[in-house]
């Protein structure tokens, strides 16, 4: 301690020298525009480089949040595009056709997006399932749709308080009503195992006119998905076994191997819709009996 004090006492003028030079430098930058501008320019270059480096690091920390936000925006934009497309078709004529479609539109106004994360998923079975971290406490109910930034993912099957089990498109039990965009033909999308990037669009009538590369979107016939949500692209076309319809191989938009951020479509009309469907089914059964 004494040595330190002695050192400071002996070389006190060095501290004074540094202090006076700092005062001089402050005066230089404070009162001289030229030096201040040169200093600021180089300081900006240095700080710009530093900010670049720090943002490169911190952007990784934000990726999760950004991804969630992008997924959400993508879903909203996709739906907006679908609606605008319908409006355009309406303005171009074919009124009857479009009117029937418009009735089927369940726009996102009626749906609420609930962000969720996939916490478990299988893709290597014939009956694959996803588990998401939102349950009935968050408003999730069975038969609600689940979508991601790159299209439809599946339908909620079971819910607990905080978690839900989802039947993805990659499940042989999955059947989603779809249509070929801009063509108007409807079919059912199903999967029978094997390739996790493709599914089958069945029951497209033989008189239908479409081509490979056409987009497949949700039909909006149920209250699970709004109309026009992207599902995938037609990759190959085959005749069905009975030869009465086409069977299209669809390349799915969603990569189920990389799923993380998803959105549950909370539908306010779901129960009402389901009740109507159930009563129709009951009426059918009674008639048969």
């Amino acid at each position: 301690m004494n040595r330190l004090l002695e050192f400071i006492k002996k070389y006190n003028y060095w501290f004074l020298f540094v202090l006076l030079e700092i005062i001089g430098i402050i005066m230089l930058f404070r009162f001289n525009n030229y030096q201040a501008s040169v200093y600021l320019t180089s300081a900006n270059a240095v700080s710009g480089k530093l900010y670049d480096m720090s943002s490169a690091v911190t952007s990784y920390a934000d990726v999760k949040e950004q991804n969630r936000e992008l997924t959400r925006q993508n879903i909203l934009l996709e739906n907006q595009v679908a609606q605008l497309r319908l409006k355009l078709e309406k303005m171009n004529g074919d009124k009857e056709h479009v009117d029937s479609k418009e009735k089927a539109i369940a726009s996102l106004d009626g749906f609420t997006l609930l962000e969720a994360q996939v916490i478990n998923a299988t893709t290597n079975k014939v009956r694959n399932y996803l588990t998401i971290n939102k349950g009935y406490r968050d408003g999730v109910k069975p038969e609600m749709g689940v979508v991601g930034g790159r299209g439809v993912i599946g339908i909620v099957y079971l819910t607990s308080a905080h978690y839900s089990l989802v039947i993805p498109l990659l499940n042989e039990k999955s059947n989603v009503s779809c249509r070929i965009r801009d063509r108007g033909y409807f079919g059912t999308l199903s999967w029978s195992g094997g390739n996790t990037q493709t599914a089958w669009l069945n029951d497209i009538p033989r008189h239908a006119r479409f081509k490979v590369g056409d987009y497949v979107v949700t039909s909006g016939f149920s209250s699970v998905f709004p109309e026009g949500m992207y599902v995938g692209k037609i990759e190959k076309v085959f005749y069905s076994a009975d030869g009465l319809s086409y069977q299209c191989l669809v390349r799915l938009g969603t990569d189920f191997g990389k799923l993380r951020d998803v959105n549950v479509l909370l539908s306010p009309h779901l129960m009402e819709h389901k009740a109507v469907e159930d009563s129709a089914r009951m009426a059918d059964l009674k008639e048969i009996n």
Partner: protein
Amino acid sequence: MILQLLKLVGITIILLLTQSLVLNHIHFLGYATPLIYVYAVLKVSRFTPRWQQLLFGFFIGWAADTFTDTMGVSAIATTALAMFMTPALNLFVDADNNDDFVPGTDTMGWSAYARFLFVAVLFHHILYFLVEAFSFSDWSGMLTSCMASVALTCALIMAIEAAFARKR
């Protein structure tokens, strides 16, 4: 002691006035401006405490800056000169000479003083012109101005020394 202090204060005031009223308007051949006020820093006696030398150097630099509107430029250079003065002086004084004296031709002799003056003024001017230019983009122009000013300042100081020597 008090007489010596008063003398130093007097020299400082005269040098600062000369610098601001006359020498600042001289740009010899478009390059050289003598910075005569450094002479005041060089007139501090050899064993003056370093902190006093530093404060004095800073004060002279600051005063020169206020007159020439170059805030900070002279202050940085003259403070550094005050710090550099003792080691520079030791280069030109015999190792066994422990006398306290004011550097000058009368105490050091013409040759030693001229060399000391050149080294000290060169050190000050390099710093001054570097801080003033604050860039190496026109280093040749800066070097020319610096060397021309060193020559002019040294010549002026030697002329003052010669004038006082004749008086003595």
